[in-house]
């Protein structure tokens, strides 16, 4: 059994949001919903900082000429010790054996305990009827079930929580998540963390890719190569 993971190289990320928009398109996320975002940050800063230096995106930090800028693409971290899964009172959020954290849209009662418990703030609740412009379904376009559980619907019901599925449809069809495919600079690498020869394993074990908020012990399957890291992914 594989354990799917991803390494995101922050030294390559240019902050273009293509992964975020690609995610929005293939999963048909309505207006105001972003399963995947690209946050503006500082190189080598802890993600858990007191307050951002500025509320604006793409603004470098520091004083001229010593300016610095980095990006933190953020979606579900698919934790091995996932707080959302532990707090879900009805087991609607579950962890598949290959490490994917998924939501059963037919079971979720909409209590939003998972939204409160997630340290990464990547879960989105369907507050009201979704708005789409233009108003037609794009992307996957059909329901997807794993072990009989409904983990994707083109239009999610009002009152359930949704989030990144790591493109479970594509993974099960032996493809990479869509954000990996669309990244124009190849900053995302996807693979099997249980295979020591996979590129993701090498990046984690030998190049020092790190987990976000690792100190919380959530043990995510998404890793980050800090932006100060020498450019080593794939070439």
């Amino acid at each position: 059994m594989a354990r799917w993971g991803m390494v995101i190289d922050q030294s390559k990320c240019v902050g273009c949001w293509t992964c975020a928009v690609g995610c929005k398109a293939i999963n048909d996320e309505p207006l105001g919903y972003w399963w995947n975002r690209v946050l503006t940050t500082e190189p080598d800063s802890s993600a858990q900082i007191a307050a951002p230096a500025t509320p604006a995106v793409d603004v470098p930090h520091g004083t001229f000429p010593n300016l610095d800028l980095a990006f933190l693409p953020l979606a579900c971290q698919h934790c091995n010790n996932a707080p959302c899964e532990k707090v879900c009172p009805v087991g609607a959020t579950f962890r598949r054996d290959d490490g994917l954290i998924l939501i059963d849209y037919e079971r979720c009662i909409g209590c939003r305990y998972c939204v409160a418990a997630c340290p990464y703030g990547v879960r989105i609740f369907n507050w009201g009827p979704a708005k789409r412009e233009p108003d037609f379904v794009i992307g996957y376009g059909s329901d997807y079930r794993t072990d009989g559980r409904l983990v994707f619907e083109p239009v999610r019901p009002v009152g359930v929580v949704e989030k990144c599925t790591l493109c479970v449809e594509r993974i099960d069809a032996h493809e990479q998540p869509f954000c990996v495919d669309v990244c124009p600079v190849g900053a995302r690498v996807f693979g099997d963390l249980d295979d020591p020869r996979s590129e993701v394993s090498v990046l984690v074990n030998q190049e020092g890719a790190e987990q976000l908020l690792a100190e919380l012990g959530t043990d995510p399957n998404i890793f980050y190569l800090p932006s100060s890291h020498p450019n080593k992914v794939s070439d």
Partner: protein
Amino acid sequence: MVSSVRTDLPTAPGLARSPWTWVLGVLALLGLVAWIYELGHGLAATGMRDVVSWGMYIFTFAYLVGLSAGGLIVASSAEVFHIEALRPLARLGVLTAAVFSAAAGLMIIPDLGQPIRVLNLFIFPNWTSPLVWDVMIITVYFLFSATELWVMVRRPERKATLTTLAFIGLPLAVLLHSITAIIFGLQMSRPWWNTALMAPIFVASAILSGTALIVLIAWILQRYQGLAIPRATWRWLAGLMVMALFVDLFFVASDYVTIAWDNIPKDRQVLDLILPGGPYQLTFWFEWVIGGLVPFIILASSKLRAKASNLALAAALILMGVYAFRIELVIPAFVNPLIQLPPGTSLGAVSSSGSFQLIGHYSPTWVEYLITLGMFALIALAIAVGYRRLHLSRTIQEAAEHVAD
């Protein structure tokens, strides 16, 4: 005992003819209408969004759970610790425990995105979730207090059963509040909640607000229904309140000091929201001054606390202070998420300021106010009906005659 029924009790007009019944009934109905509106529009009808994703329903829920404790604690204490002075209020206490625990359970329903699936909690319980344990303990607590009330009213001669029930009730109340506290206390994603003191704070504030509630009801009965509550009973209630107030604020202060001294950014950010000068300072003033210092002075002064109306005033202020504490607990914890980088968290909605929010904002909508108000009206109605139908005035009066002043 039935033979000693007094006939000289004041006969208030029937419930149906009281204007209060109509006011409360209309309020409860408005709450229902607001909930139907919410069912049609989704939780988009509330002020909650993806940064501050819990709001008035949850802090009111926590408040109602707390209020359900006091009754059972007062009632059980009378039995367990042989406090004769509290015996007159035992049935009233158990009645409030039953009503408030049922109301707390109901309060969760409008907060659910899929209320139709609420039974999933019992069909697919995930036992690592504190919420499941809380649902179970609230259910048990309600069934327990309803049973105890039934025994008290219908089988009052079964003294041994009542004693056993009292001994079970006390730890059950403590368990209820500990588990409700744990819903919050175990979440490392919210540093404001993640303290081992959460359960002790919840138990203390439950005893505090629950006793204050009993005091307020007892005073209303004495003032408007002509019941004579013995002075010894008031003395015990005042003592319970002042002790609980002191312990409660001591625990809260211990948390403040730890955060202020450590100065860990994400902890400190929350404290700065609520301390004087912060955007949520109103909760601080209500908790510490209006519902803290003022009632403390009233209860500590032997002259002031001798008057039942002063006790009622202190109780009302304490009830406000504890509600402020619940708000302070729930909302500020959401305002600054752990990862707080531009452009912020996706809102799950498009507002005039875009679809992201860096610093959380929450203000309840009319739907939330009406549903919450309707719940309080429903509670008042249920207690009034219970008081009448179970002939509590008679038993309070009988028991009061056995209390030496």
